[in-house]
């Protein structure tokens, strides 16, 4: 069945619009707009027997704006760092630790289970915001669409189970709470952290930006470190 680029864009916009409306009405985490619109589009494409490549002739026009959106993240990143001033040093340290832990503890168990180098590269950026994770996955030789799905799943997991977990392990400072949410589960965790208050929300947004940047810079080395620890350099 023919699917013009214009129709692909139209269908993507309509699917997202309806999904977001449903999510706003229900606030049910499994109805996350990205999850729902992706599921609806995949179902539609498969029913109509349209290959992904055909859909992407239009889809890439939306996808194209991911890269400038990542650059735009520089603005909130700068503002948060300015606002926090001297308090940003410990924040930088704990987020850096989170970045190292996030990549190593993702790649190591997967490697032990025999994941291919491409799959390891796909999984390495799982805790960072989707647009950056897609770029990192691409650069490392992973499978960017699978990275996108894994990142979204990580975000939902952290947003749902993170708050009770953090309370259970005794994390009470709102800044620490927000940073942990943002570093582990990026934007979806940040949306949840905002419900805990302004300070937690701001800290979470900062962790999202910092962890994205730090992981993008460090991931190539961390992945090869994990692979040499696994004896598969």
């Amino acid at each position: 069945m023919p699917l013009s680029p214009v129709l692909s864009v139209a269908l993507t916009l309509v699917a997202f619009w309806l999904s977001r409306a449903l999510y706003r009405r229900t606030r049910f985490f499994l109805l996350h707009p990205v999850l729902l619109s992706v599921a609806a589009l995949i179902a539609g494409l498969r029913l109509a027997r349209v290959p992904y490549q055909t859909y992407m002739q239009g889809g890439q026009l939306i996808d194209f704006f991911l890269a400038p959106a990542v650059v735009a993240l520089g603005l909130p990143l700068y503002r948060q760092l300015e606002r926090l001033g001297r308090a940003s040093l410990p924040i930088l340290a704990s987020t850096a630790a989170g970045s190292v832990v996030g990549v190593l503890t993702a790649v190591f168990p997967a490697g032990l289970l025999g994941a291919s180098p491409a799959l390891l590269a796909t999984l390495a950026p799982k805790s960072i915001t989707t647009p950056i994770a897609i770029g990192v996955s691409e650069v490392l030789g992973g499978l960017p669409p699978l990275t996108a799905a894994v990142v979204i799943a990580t975000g939902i997991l952290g947003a749902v189970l993170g708050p009770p977990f953090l309370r259970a392990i005794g994390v009470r400072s709102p800044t620490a709470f927000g940073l942990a949410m943002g570093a582990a589960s990026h934007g979806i965790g940040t949306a949840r952290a905002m419900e805990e208050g302004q300070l937690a929300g701001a800290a979470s947004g900062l962790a999202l930006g910092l962890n994205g940047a730090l992981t993008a810079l460090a991931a190539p080395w961390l992945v090869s470190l994990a692979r040499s620890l696994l004896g598969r350099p």
Partner: protein
Amino acid sequence: MIPGLAILFCFLAVGEQASRLAGIPVPGSVLGMLLLAAALRLGLVRGETVQAAADALLDNLSLLFVPAGVGLMLYFDLPARDWWSVLAAVVPSTFLVMAAVGWLQQALERPAGPATSSQPPGTEG
């Protein structure tokens, strides 16, 4: 909106060129983000100039990764073994990151003067 978009795309172009020339495996967009933050810090770019364009992109960020997400349809036939790897990479790691960041940040906050936390006294052993 236009000046902001122009600035964002200029920083993206510079970031991509830098990533290519330096041969470093970091996405050009991330380098562009860091360069933009630095330019804002140095006062070379004013926040208000990029605000409208940045808001337009960031307010609709979720929409932008839907097409990439649809690409998941290419991996439905991934072997079961790989799905176990995915699970093993996602679940423990998410909690380990939270514990590492939460605990470290809380430990670093305490000695530094008035803590931002309102810790009830004597609730921790």
